[in-house]
């Protein structure tokens, strides 16, 4: 039934994640176009499985599973149940949140070269989680009130079995104490989910944040 639906063009942000990046005119390095995960100095270990075709119908069981997974994950992140969250992540994960920059329309890139907010593997994520579990991570004691609002979920088949590619939008609201105003982070995400021993796990995530200058005191959170 979805074949009757018009195919919307991919958003610029999503295109930047998934489509090989076009080489900007005058690019002195002449590098071969690559995805953001591939371009990262720390992404060498990451899975290169990509989406195939149009988004799956919303009643497709694979879409329902992926959506369910994301809602469950959002709940874990709101609750700061980070050990449980870490269990949902593969050993070869690449968790990347590039720094967005304002560039001219024709520049061909809108992320900082060689710099990200998060450019993580399982080890660095596990250290971040371990820190929150100490009694001395002051930035989250007292804890923030967090709400990850999830929307715009689209699921795609992947070019390898037991994988799905899932796009989503997330809007995180974070509030601390009683005096300061809360702050927001809005981002688009592209996730690679992998079926491991009958459970979906996160194998790659690229977070395209919509701020070039973050309006949050730190990113002691996950998106």
């Amino acid at each position: 039934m979805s074949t009757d639906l018009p195919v919307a063009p991919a958003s610029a942000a999503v295109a930047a994640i998934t489509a090989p990046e076009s080489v900007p005119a005058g690019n002195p390095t002449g590098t071969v176009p690559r995805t953001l995960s591939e371009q990262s100095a720390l992404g060498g270990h990451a899975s290169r499985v990509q989406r195939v075709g149009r988004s799956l119908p919303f009643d497709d069981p694979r879409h329902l599973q992926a959506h369910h997974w994301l809602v469950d994950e959002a709940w874990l992140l709101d609750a700061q149940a980070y050990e449980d969250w870490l269990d949902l992540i593969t050993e070869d994960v690449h968790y990347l949140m590039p720094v967005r920059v304002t560039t001219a329309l024709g520049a061909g890139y809108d992320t900082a070269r060689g710099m990200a907010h998060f450019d993580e593997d399982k080890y660095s994520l596990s250290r971040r989680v371990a820190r929150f579990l100490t009694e001395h991570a002051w930035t989250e004691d007292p804890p923030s009130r967090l709400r990850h609002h999830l929307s715009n979920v689209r699921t795609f088949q992947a070019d390898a079995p037991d994988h799905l590619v899932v796009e989503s939008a997330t809007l995180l609201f974070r509030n601390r104490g009683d005096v300061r105003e809360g702050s927001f982070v809005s981002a688009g995400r592209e996730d690679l989910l992998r079926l491991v021993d009958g459970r979906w796990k996160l194998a790659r995530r690229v977070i395209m944040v919509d701020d070039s200058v973050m309006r949050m005191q730190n990113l002691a959170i996950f998106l």
Partner: protein
Amino acid sequence: MTDQTGVIGDVRRGMIPAHVYNDREIFELEKERVFSRAWVFVGHESEIAQPGDYVVRRVLEDSFIVTRDEQGEIRAHFNMCLHRGMQVCRAEVGNASHFRCPYHGWSYRNDGRIVGLPFHKDAYGGEAGFKRKGQRLLPAPNLATYNGMIFLSMDPDAPPLEEFLGDFRFYLDYYTKQSASGIELRGPQRWRVKANWKIGAENFAGDMYHTPQTHTSVVEIGLFREPKAEKRKDGATYWAGAGGGTTYKLPEGDLDERLRYVGYPQEMIERMKEQWSDDQLRVIGDDGFMISAASVYPNLSFVHNWPRVAESDDVLPFVSIRQWQPISEDETEVLSWFAVDAEAPEEFKALSYKAYLMCFGSTGMFEQDDVENWVSLTNTAAGSMARRLLLNSRMGILEDDRPVVPPLGPDAFHGPGEARTGYSEYNQRALLNHWADDLEKPPSKAATLEVGGPGEGAQDAAGRTSANADQISLPAGEAVAQA
């Protein structure tokens, strides 16, 4: 404006009126007297490596296009069209041979010279009405570089950058000149924190005392082996010229062993030995001190640490350069760059970047806890009670101003300036004394450019013309208005 003599006097004796961390009048004074004359970091040559590369950076509200022109010269143009004042460049990074104002289409070469002026003949009568030749975007009043670091000063009469930095240059080399090629700068990550800009600068300048408390968690998780209380007070703090910083005391060993201890591979150590002076090498090899955090007045800081980056006992060093860019009395935009020696092996560069991300910057595990403290401090400093409280910033000196610990002698510390081991607030006091010096000094009136005047150029109260006044002679106001 309130007389701040009392505040300045208190600061000079090491008693800090708490409200200076959230006070609009103080901030207005800082804009007028600190940032109007200091050398302010805006970027590094490696960020604009090719002709036409540019980044747009601010000094307070003033936006500058920092660019490398076609001749390879580094320039900083005030980002305002000479015609109606529109921003001529609205991207923050890119490569351009020209900048064209989107409002009426005036365009400029990347060296600042005007090249395009639509309907020049019809609107202005050509050169007879508006002399296009020689017109250029307003250059920053002063620009200079050291080790590739680009600084601007809003004061055309500022002392030369090297004189301003003074003996701090000795320490700057550790961060930015580990080989003949110097550093590559990546980033910055940018984020805004509801904290006063001075707090970060003071903290990085000399606050070894906070490390064991604030950063307990990163030691507990095995990320960092150093900042235990005992370790930290064995380090030395130093102040020299425009800046000062902290160090860690290294375990026994020779120069090579000590540099390897913090994770430098031998090939990088060999280049350091070629690059650094005997005294720079002795601070590490003989004295056993390794630089860590530092600040240059007013708002530039550095950090050098060496965490674990994988399930292994090996550590990897990283360098970050950061600027505490003031937005208001209670808000700061942090610009945090990762710096790495350009000649370092690629694998080192990648792991050093990983070390940086884990420790500092918008997601860094050290930085997360720092900012929480600074935001809270700033918030608390806003009220009337903060005006009754003088914070004690006299650590390291007795009531009669004698030192708790004497300075290190020349045999124990081979760097310039004054250094001492143990916890103290000498550096925070030194930084705020520079600040007090500036706050006391009335500003000189800046030259103004008379757009639409009779073409005599700009003159200040003393009758001096600005450096570029002879090149700027804009047409009469009527002609501009009709364009």
